[in-house]
Structures are given as C-alpha cells and as structure tokens.
C-alpha cells in the first residue's frame, strides 16, 4: 500500500522513529536537559500492551507472526493545545509519556526540538550502528569453495 504523506508528516514520522529507537537513558538525559517543559494533560494512558510483530521468510516472502512485543504508549495534550502521541518498546511508561510530550511540543516548535533532542539522538543512534557494524565486520569470515572434486 502506498499512501502520500506530506513533508511535514514525514518529518514527524522520522522524529518519532528516532525517539522510539533511542536508548532510554539518552532520551531521558536529553529531555531532562530540555528547559521550559510545558504542562500537559494525559488523554490516554500511559499504558502498556502487546503488538504482534510480523516477519517475512522463505522464497515467497510470506508473512508470519514472529511473536508479541510489549509496547508502551501515551497520548497527551500540552497547555497550548497540541496533542502528541508516544510509542516505545518495553514497559517504560515515563519514556512513552516523555515521547508524547516531545511530539506535541515538536508541532509547535519543530526547530528547537529537532536541534536539542532529535538531532543529538540521531547522531547517537548512527554512531552506535556504525560501532556495531565495525565490531561485526572485524570478526567476519568469508567462505568460498577453492576446488570442487571433479570426477
């Protein structure tokens, strides 16, 4: 299914992706350092639930249910009226709520949120990906066939 999303939506999706992927500790530090947090009202949650994770395997790429994952979510409204939603893996309700508030805040002041929270977290994620890839690459073994026994 392809659906057209606006640039604004794409940017928001990217921000939420980063917030959900970021390590909880790094996110908490960034959020703690962020000054002038708005008051917010909880609309739904924070609550935990299960989502089915689907995978694809085999030559045909047929989908199968890999298993259920625990997910926390929250929806909040900040004082200025923007509504934000936060989802993250695990049972950390505070993290889900923080993500929701950041999402709401981002709708009002995208520049500041992107600069102070999203961009540093993205750098962190990219760096840890590179480190992991390098560590993995260091122990890589290539298998190849030198000679096949002919008869």
């Amino acid at each position, binding site marked *: 299914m392809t659906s057209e999303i606006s640039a604004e939506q794409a940017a928001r999706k990217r921000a939420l992706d980063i917030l959900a992927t970021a390590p909880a500790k790094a996110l908490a530090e960034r959020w703690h350092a962020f000054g002038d947090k708005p008051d917010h009202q909880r*609309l739904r949650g924070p609550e935990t639930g299960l989502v089915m994770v689907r995978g694809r395997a085999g030559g045909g790429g047929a989908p199968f249910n890999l298993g259920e994952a625990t997910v926390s979510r929250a929806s909040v409204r900040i004082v200025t009226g923007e509504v934000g939603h936060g989802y993250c893996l695990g049972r950390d309700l505070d993290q889900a709520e923080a993500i929701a508030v950041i999402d709401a805040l981002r709708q009002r002041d995208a520049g500041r949120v992107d600069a102070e929270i999203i961009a540093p977290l993205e750098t962190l994620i990219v760096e840890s990906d590179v480190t992991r890839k390098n560590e993995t690459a260091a122990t890589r073994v290539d298998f190849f066939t030198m000679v096949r026994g002919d008869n």
Partner: protein
Amino acid sequence: MLSHDFGAGFADPVRDAQAAFRAILDALANPGMAQKLLTSGERSTALQGELVSILLTLSDHDTPIWLSPALDTVAVRGFVGFHTGAPVVADPEKANFAFVARGDDLPDLASCNLGTQEYPDRSTTIVIELLSLTGGAELVLRGPGIADTTTVAPQGLPQDFVAQWQDNRELFPRGIDLLLVAGGEVIGLPRSTRIVEA
C-alpha cells in the same frame, strides 16, 4: 493541524472504570434505586458526563455500539475509536450497547437485539440520558432485587414506554436492559423488572 484531539478519557483509567462498573452493577442489582455515577470530566464533544463514563467502562473493540443521531458525529466517533476501539453500527439490532443522548428518541425496543433463547445475554443494553431521574410520571416497579415495590419517576421517557416495556418483559429470558442516567446518577431497569402501575 497535524493531530486530531479526541478528548481525554478517565483521569485514572483503572480505578474510575472500576468505580463506574460497580455503580452499574449495583444499579442493575437494585432496579429503581439511583446509584452515584462518576461523571467523566471533559466536555469537548456531544458525548459527555454519564454517557462517557458508561461508554468507557463497558465498551471495547468486541462490543459494537449504536449512537443516537445527536451523538453520531465525527467527534464522537473519533472519541469512541480512540479510547475504546468499539465499532459504531448503524443498526441497533447489531449493537451490544446503544447510547441515546438527551432529547433523542429512544429506539423502538423491539428493533434492538433481543438476544436468543440460547444466548439471552447477547441482547442490546440501552443507555439513555434523561432530563432528570425524578419529577416525571411515577412508575411502580416490582421484581427481583426489589423488596416489595419501588417507585421511580424519570422525566423524558417516550409516551408508549410502559407498553413497550410490557412487551419486552413478555420475552423473558430474552429482552433488553435499560440504564437511565441523569445528574450524575444511574438507575437500572433490567429485563426482569415489571412496571406494575404507571
């Protein structure tokens, strides 16, 4: 606007839903006796107060609900979908719960799902918001959960309500159950209750 604002649910979802559930249970166990019902705070949509409490307490994605015309708006549908995931149906016969706003007509009781002889519990429960639970025409009730007789006087029931209720009572064990709400209180009228004097 990027995000739709569907409004807030219960402030304390678990405890508030439990308190409301207890009130509904007590209302159906003691027909005709008004029970205090917690009214949910926010009034951003047509659906408010007592109806919201009952909706949030009883419905989920497995309970199709029917909304009276005044409630069947985009805002209310959004609220229902966001907080409960309950499907909204156009035909009261397919609904587990029917919600009727103040001033809207009660759907004809016979047009709702009356349950089957094997599964009488699958009938529709109608929640109707009235003008007031007192000060209307007096109805004398008798039946399980009532020591002798009890009198209620809700305002805003349809003219032919007594006859409709009589027909509903005849179907026992099938039939619909009714919850009357107004002013932060709920009165239960289960199918087992008879109106002996109107």
